């Protein structure tokens, strides 16, 4: 029986790094400190696995599948590389390389979650801090359009609400927790103050708060929130020793999108004239921040990057996967560590079934079911080592606790094989 300590959880953007995984033989027997989702990921990682590569539904050897994948990608005029967010950084770097050598487009799942956040940060900048700073210093914590008990289960306990910090020795009692949302959630029941904002009214409320922080008294209700509540919250924010806004898809995917984040960044920037204030997106997939980071250090842009001209170009809405698929542009696609058939709009998902789609995946998913080539891979963070980026932009090392199920290769190894074959095919041509 082996016990692995300080194991990083490869599920959500919290990347909790205090797991204790017990392994007997090559089987995981226990996951201490893990939340319900994390435990399920570790304990059930062998279930529903794809056992052999397939080409057009028929079992194939790994080499045959790689050959089929490379041929489809090398001959495509508009190949798409998509996914990336639930694997380690080495594999992501290979994805960017693959897009570059095929003259294709590389996009990651942030284009359908926190993409608007990135647009806003490119527009107006960002004031950020590590989750450790939040734990040790923050005495005002706002959750805006996010609900950690459902999506980031240990966030409250490890980073934001209950932990005792260096300058917040009382823990929960030392923090004032604000929740802004369109409806009550488990977060609002934990919060000291719940502010119910009208659907699609976040932008106006953020602007009004910013104006109040600048010293303008708000005299009329904004987005269903009473004026006195806005003025009082602005005062409280200014008086905090350190404040943080954690925001989720309630802000990025509601009416206003990147402009909501633009306004939130503006509010936080304004508050920094009075005190220390930061904001952090509640990133979903455990390494979606890594997908942005790696793509940026390799191409200069975080997602929706087009290499058709040989150099990177960036334009979400034009080169993002959903938009391209909905317009029927890609003539081949490779999906790594993602399930777009389950999550994309029907028009976009349907196009994946019309073209040669290659999927690298551990488990049977709607995407593998419509794919022409399916290659099983090992699970990063359980069967493969690697690096991942936490929601606050810190990199952590993922562990390997068991050997890959059925001896399959990692995303990185399979992508290396595909890249090598594509290069050879391109040279021959």
């Amino acid at each position: 029986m082996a016990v692995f300590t300080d194991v990083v959880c490869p599920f959500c953007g919290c990347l909790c790094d205090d797991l204790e995984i017990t392994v007997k033989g090559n089987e995981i027997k226990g996951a201490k400190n893990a939340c319900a989702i994390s435990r399920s990921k570790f304990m059930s990682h062998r279930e529903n696995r794809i056992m052999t590569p397939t080409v057009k539904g028929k079992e194939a050897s790994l080499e045959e599948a790689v050959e089929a994948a490379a041929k489809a990608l090398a001959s495509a005029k508009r190949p798409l590389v998509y996914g990336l967010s639930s694997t380690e950084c080495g594999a992501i770097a290979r994805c960017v390389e693959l897009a570059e050598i095929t003259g294709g487009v590389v996009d990651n799942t942030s284009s359908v979650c926190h993409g608007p956040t990135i647009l806003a940060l490119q527009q107006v900048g960002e004031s950020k801090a590590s989750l450790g700073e939040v734990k040790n210093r923050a005495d005002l914590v706002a959750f805006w359009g996010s609900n950690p008990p459902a999506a980031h289960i240990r966030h409250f306990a490890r980073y934001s609400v209950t932990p005792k910090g260096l300058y917040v020795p009382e823990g929960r009692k030392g923090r004032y927790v604000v929740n802004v949302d369109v409806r009550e959630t488990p977060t609002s029941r934990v919060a000291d103050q719940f502010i119910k904002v009208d659907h699609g009214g976040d932008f106006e409320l953020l602007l009004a708060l910013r104006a109040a922080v600048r010293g303008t008294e708000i005299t009329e209700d904004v987005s269903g929130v009473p004026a006195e509540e806005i003025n009082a919250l602005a005062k409280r924010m200014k008086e905090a020793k350190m404040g943080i806004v954690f925001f989720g898809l309630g802000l990025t995917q509601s009416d206003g999108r990147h402009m909501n984040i633009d306004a939130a960044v503006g509010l936080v920037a304004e508050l920094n004239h009075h005190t220390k204030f930061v904001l952090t997106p509640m990133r979903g997939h455990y390494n979606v921040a890594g997908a942005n980071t790696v793509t940026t250090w390799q191409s200069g842009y975080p997602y929706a990057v087009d290499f058709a001209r040989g150099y990177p170009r960036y334009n979400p809405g034009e080169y993002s996967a959903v938009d391209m698929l909905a317009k029927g542009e890609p003539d081949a696609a490779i999906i790594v560590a993602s399930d777009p058939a389950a999550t994309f709009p029907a028009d976009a998902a349907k196009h994946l079934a019309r073209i040669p789609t290659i999927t690298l995946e551990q488990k049977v998913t709607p995407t593998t079911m419509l794919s022409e080539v399916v290659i099983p891979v090992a699970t990063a963070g359980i069967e493969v080592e690697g690096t991942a980026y936490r929601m606050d932009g810190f990199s952590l090392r993922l562990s390997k606790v068991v050997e890959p199920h059925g001896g399959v290769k990692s995303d990185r190894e399979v992508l290396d094989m595909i890249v090598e074959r594509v290069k050879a095919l391109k040279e021959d041509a």
Partner: protein
Amino acid sequence: MKELMLTPKKLPDLPLEAEAITPDSVAGKTLKEVKSLPVYVGNTVQKLGDYFDVKGETAETPSDQLVAIQGECGNVKYIGAGMTAGRLIVEGCVGMHAGAEMEGGELSITGSASNWAGAEMKGGLLRIQGDAGHQLGAAYRGSPEGMTGGVIVVGGDVGLEAGAFMRRGMLIIQGDADSFLGVHMNGGEIFVFGNVARRLGAEAKGNGGFIACFGGVESILPTYVYDTTFRPDFLKLYLRQLRDQLGVEAAGEYLDASFRRYRGDIAVGGTAEILIAEP
């Protein structure tokens, strides 16, 4: 002016990227050279002549060059992008980035334009008789300035974020404007004769910039403050110019109108003005 005619043959299913279609890139070239100008389809480089019949004559300099496209180019991107002089007329629709970063001359589109038309325009005249998509005349992602000069006249409606990060120049919309018109505006003038959706002028710093609305506004942001109702002389001058020099007939109807003035965006300490014509 010498006229060069381009007629689309069978266009590809993928978008065709054709920044080669400007007076600048055809002037001084032979027809053969024009036909072999590069255009891009997916990750391949093709020739302009593969997709367009090329007829007519080329001029010595771009300013004497007229380029006329007869036919639908809804899936052709970058038509007229970066042009500095001459005239380019499209009888039909155009794809994304038409007239983006243009510096001079006139680009006239009889149909509709897709997203990013006139993005980061520096000078010249862009006319779109139909509708325009999103981000008309806007700043590209992460760029601090959108339009820095020139005039855009749209006959129909426009999408989201028209005139975003506008610094100078003029944007005239004869139909309706969607949300976030003139967001982050920091100078320049916007005129809308149709209805304007909410959140116009959000986070506008001002710098002399204004949005004049003649056909009503869905709502004004809480961070814009009403200060007066007046008949500004300067607007009369603008409206005459729109009517007489740019052919915007509707402008003539508001010469004596009075306007409600809102100032903001106070969330950013801005002094931009939203002027709303009294019915």
